[in-house]
């Protein structure tokens, strides 16, 4: 069985501060990991994905994530957030199908 757990349902952070959104996964086979963002009233958009190779993955809008196989984690980070980063963030993996986490609501405070 495969699953994704997002450890924080809500993360408030001040503008220009760093942020980390945590994601842990469970799988008995190799997986591919993704982070998607959902802005209010918009469809989900891919931020980044890990398929293989370098464990540090860079995505759009200054986000990056690190794949840690021993910790079964794929945490998303940004060194300095902007108001426009306020959105719902979903960690996901593919195994026999696509699995999404329950989401983390990031609120950037001016």
């Amino acid at each position, binding site marked *: 069985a495969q699953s994704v757990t997002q450890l924080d349902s809500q993360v408030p952070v001040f503008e220009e501060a760093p942020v980390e959104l945590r994601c842990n996964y469970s799988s008995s086979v190799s997986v591919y990991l993704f982070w998607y963002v959902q802005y209010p009233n918009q*469809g989900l*958009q*891919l931020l980044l994905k890990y398929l293989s190779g370098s464990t540090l993955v860079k995505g759009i809008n200054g986000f990056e994530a690190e794949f840690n196989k021993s910790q079964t984690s794929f945490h998303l980070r940004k060194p300095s957030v902007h108001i426009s980063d306020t959105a719902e963030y*979903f960690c996901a993996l*593919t195994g*026999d199908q*696509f699995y*999404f986490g*329950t989401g983390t609501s990031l609120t950037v405070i001016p």
Partner: protein
Amino acid sequence: DAGVTQSPTHLIKTRGQQVTLRCSPISGHKSVSWYQQVLGQGPQFIFQYYEKEERGRGNFPDRFSARQFPNYSSELNVNALLLGDSALYLCASSRPPHSLTDTQYFGPGTRLTVL
């Protein structure tokens, strides 16, 4: 190019009724997937179609069915609606070749309310 489009945007039905949701993928994309997103939850995989054949099915009852047409557009049908079917239904398309690593491009969704 136009993104993934879904219709209708909003829909209100009563328990026991049937509903059909429609999705048009990005031009050139041949794979379409459907997801159900209940308020406050992440999307849950319902179906994936590639080249008009079902390639994957999530843990949903037989009341849920789908099909893909020769132009790669898709319909999701839900029969005997329950209150718990109220959700945002998302459609996503991806470009060939079909692969689990494909980036999925999501539409804005259809908001279904069952009364």
